[in-house]
């Protein structure tokens, strides 16, 4: 049986911001990995985060909740979370849930970084 729920969150620092690039699928079984990656940056005082979703091909409501809380926590600390390179599935769930209106979504990483 394939491990369908694998998720890694590689990150890079670029233009004074941190780019998190979640890779795989995020659901209720592995959402703490994404949560941990965000918390690590917050605790290090890094509050300008880009979520580059280019390698993320599936997200459930468990993952959406973490993204919402991350955006909220960053804003509370005077920072910002921006999102880019959404797959078709992720774009659709962002639209259905209205996340596209409350989160900063951009087409590509350069545009996302430029708004931070």
């Amino acid at each position, binding site marked *: *049986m394939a491990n369908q729920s694998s998720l890694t969150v590689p990150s890079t620092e670029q233009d004074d911001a941190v780019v998190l690039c979640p890779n795989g699928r995020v659901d*209720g*079984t592995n959402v703490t990995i994404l949560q941990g990656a965000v918390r690590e940056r917050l605790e290090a005082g890094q509050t300008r985060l880009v979520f580059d979703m280019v390698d993320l091909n599936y997200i*459930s*409501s468990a993952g959406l*909740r973490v993204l919402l809380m991350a955006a909220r926590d960053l804003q509370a600390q005077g920072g910002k979370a921006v999102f880019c390179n959404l797959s078709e599935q992720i774009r659709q769930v962002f639209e259905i*849930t209205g996340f596209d209106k409350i989160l900063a979504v951009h087409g590509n990483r350069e545009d996302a970084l430029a708004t931070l």
Partner: protein
Amino acid sequence: MMYYRCMGGRETQKGQGIDVLLRPELNMALTALADVVEEFAAQEALSGALPINLNLVLDELITNSVSYALTDAAEPVLRLRLWRDGDMVVAQVEDNGAAFDPFKEAPKPDIEQGLDERPIGGLGVFLVMQLSETAHYERDGDTNRIILQMRMES
């Protein structure tokens, strides 16, 4: 009935549908779910966004079953059936847990609210309702049953 195991390249026949038990533990259930949906999608030649949306709505319902309804069940049973009815895909999720109607229990998110006001809960069930043509809950004896339909793309 057997627990679902991905056979890999198993010859399945169009129209016969899938009726399986999933292990009532989140990781195993969701991993098996992805395999079941992949197999069903191949069987019925589902195209476009339907397979991933079907995976998503069933992920949300199974997560609810395992996380809420089945937590106190002595011998938890989680059953998934998928079949095709005309241009609809029909999915049925059953568990033998405490009565739990997700459509009634979940708060309905106001998608017009801003970042700070948005409640954290209720998103999963909202996605199920938005992505399904019909979705309803029934309690049948000791069984929670959710039946939903999703339209196949023409």
